[in-house]
């Protein structure tokens, strides 16, 4: 996604309000943007707190800043700056975190972001964008160019199956229809769920829904119809349960008096064995891999 991200920003880098800050990251990825943006590309150094305050000052001057780092460093280190300097005054700054969830794999827990959007969504005015596929990134960037509030864009690696073309971007999409349970997923995990679900007969296949913008405001009627039919909601996200999509949709459904007889939540569970590995390793350890989720559906677990 980072390449698409870079290309989409290069395309927009001539906008008079565009300015891009990085916390000294982007080697072998953001060089084209550095070339294209010139003085509007600022390496703010390894100093994320200052970078966010500077971004707020730039926004106050009338610019539309983007602030980039890897996911944990963009949201956790400068959290107070995000709260006080961006969210409370509602300034239009886009925070970009690369490698959401276990994206940085064996680099270890300090480089993971398992609680990023849940934490950020406790703040006022901020909206989170979680692309699942490369094409989502360019759609989101086009929208974010004129987005008048703080935003967080959580990048990962697209896992779109070669034989599948998703519908055009929208905050909620039904990727697959089926007569099995209703799955609600956010982020690149959607790709693996599509690939594995396509192997199932329609009678067993889940109806697979992808949500890409948080918090949840409106839920499509078709999703509620699917839920009514299946009576089983499975939420899948590479984020801890606290503050995650599972809690958000549960809260929404309760507020609207919608009962879900069965609710399963597949989410990040930290470091169960205390051992480290690839993103795939950590997902598997949490039962977040598509093979496990689909196997559970088949066995009725």
């Amino acid at each position, binding site marked *: 996604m980072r390449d698409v991200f870079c290309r989409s920003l290069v395309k927009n880098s001539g906008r008079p309000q565009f*300015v891009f800050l990085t916390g000294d990251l982007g080697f072998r990825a953001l060089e084209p943007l550095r070339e294209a943006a010139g*003085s*509007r590309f*600022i390496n*703010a*150094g390894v*100093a994320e*707190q*200052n*970078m*966010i*305050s*500077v*971004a*707020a*000052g*730039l*926004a*106050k*001057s*009338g*610019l539309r800043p983007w602030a980039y780092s890897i996911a944990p460093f963009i949201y956790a280190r400068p959290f*107070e*700056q995000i709260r*006080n*300097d961006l969210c*409370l*005054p509602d300034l239009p700054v886009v925070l970009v975190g690369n490698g959401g969830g276990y994206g940085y794999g064996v680099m270890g827990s300090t480089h993971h972001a398992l609680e990023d959007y849940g934490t950020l969504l406790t703040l006022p005015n901020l909206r989170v964008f979680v692309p699942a596929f490369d094409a989502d990134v360019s759609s989101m960037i086009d929208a974010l160019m004129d987005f008048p509030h703080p935003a967080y864009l959580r990048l990962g690696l697209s896992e779109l199956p070669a034989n599948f073309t998703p519908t055009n971007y929208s905050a909620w999409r039904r990727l697959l229809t089926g007569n099995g349970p209703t799955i609600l997923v956010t982020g690149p995990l959607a790709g693996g769920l599509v690939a594995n679900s396509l192997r199932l007969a329609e009678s067993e296949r889940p109806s697979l829904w992808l949500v890409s913008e948080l918090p949840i405001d409106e839920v499509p009627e078709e999703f509620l119809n699917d839920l009514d039919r299946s009576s089983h909601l499975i939420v899948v996200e590479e984020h801890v349960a606290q503050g995650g999509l599972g809690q958000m949709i549960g809260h929404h459904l309760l507020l609207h008096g919608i009962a879900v007889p069965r609710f399963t939540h597949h989410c990040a569970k930290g470091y169960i064995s205390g051992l480290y590995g690839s993103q795939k390793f950590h997902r598997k350890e949490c039962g977040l891999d598509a093979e496990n989720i689909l196997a559970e559906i088949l066995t009725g677990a």
Partner: protein
Amino acid sequence: MQPAETVQDISAGESMPLLIKRAKARLLRMHYEAGVGHIGGNLSCLDVMLTLHHRVLGEEDMFVLSKGHAVGALYVVLWSQGVLSDEDLRTFHVDGTRLSGHPPVKGIPEIAFATGSLGHGIGLAAGVALGKALLSLPGRVFCLTSDGEWNEGSCWESLIFAAHHKLDRLTIIVDQNGLQGFGSTREVAGIAPLADKFRAFGIPAYEIDGHDPEAIEQGLREASRHGPAAVIARTVKGHGVSFMENRMEWHYLPMTEAQYLRALSEI
């Protein structure tokens, strides 16, 4: 009890010493009526803030109050400029006020940022200075910090950034009153000599008497011609009130009526 000063009492042509005296009286009254503390750190920087606003700042310039706990002094400065009314000041700390105990997010356009957590202002001011430069907009930025605030690592991040990007529109002011939250700056986490540290970061530093209006005006003007630069204002916490001067408790304590009347008689 004396009647409150109104903004009409303060003319544009008034001498700074007289203006400072009147503003100081209004600041004391506001804190007394509200029954709140923070008066010590407000008195230490009032002279600098008033002189900056009345003698240095132009329409296109911006002021960032990084030591947000001195917002009382800023409200009084804005009152002296006719931005806030006497009625506004009476609402200080009262339920439903626009005038919160640290700079508010919204409601007073002249207050650029909601500070109060230390170590944010310089980065914010640096961003504005850079933004103005990138957009070719006129104007300078002045940011007032406390001295204890320089314990915050983010201040040094911002200093590195300002020097590296040669943000010539930025002037940092330090209200060096020597006292912080729970001790003197020397006792808590000594950073003297601060001016040398700024210079080592590539930031020219000017040391001035922070209670001499002429020195303040001259220092700010000179520094702003050599930005990014710092002005270290040597000040006295609780300045002008004998029983408050250099006393840490006046970071926190409200005044009794007797203390208020005595303070008024001394300034």
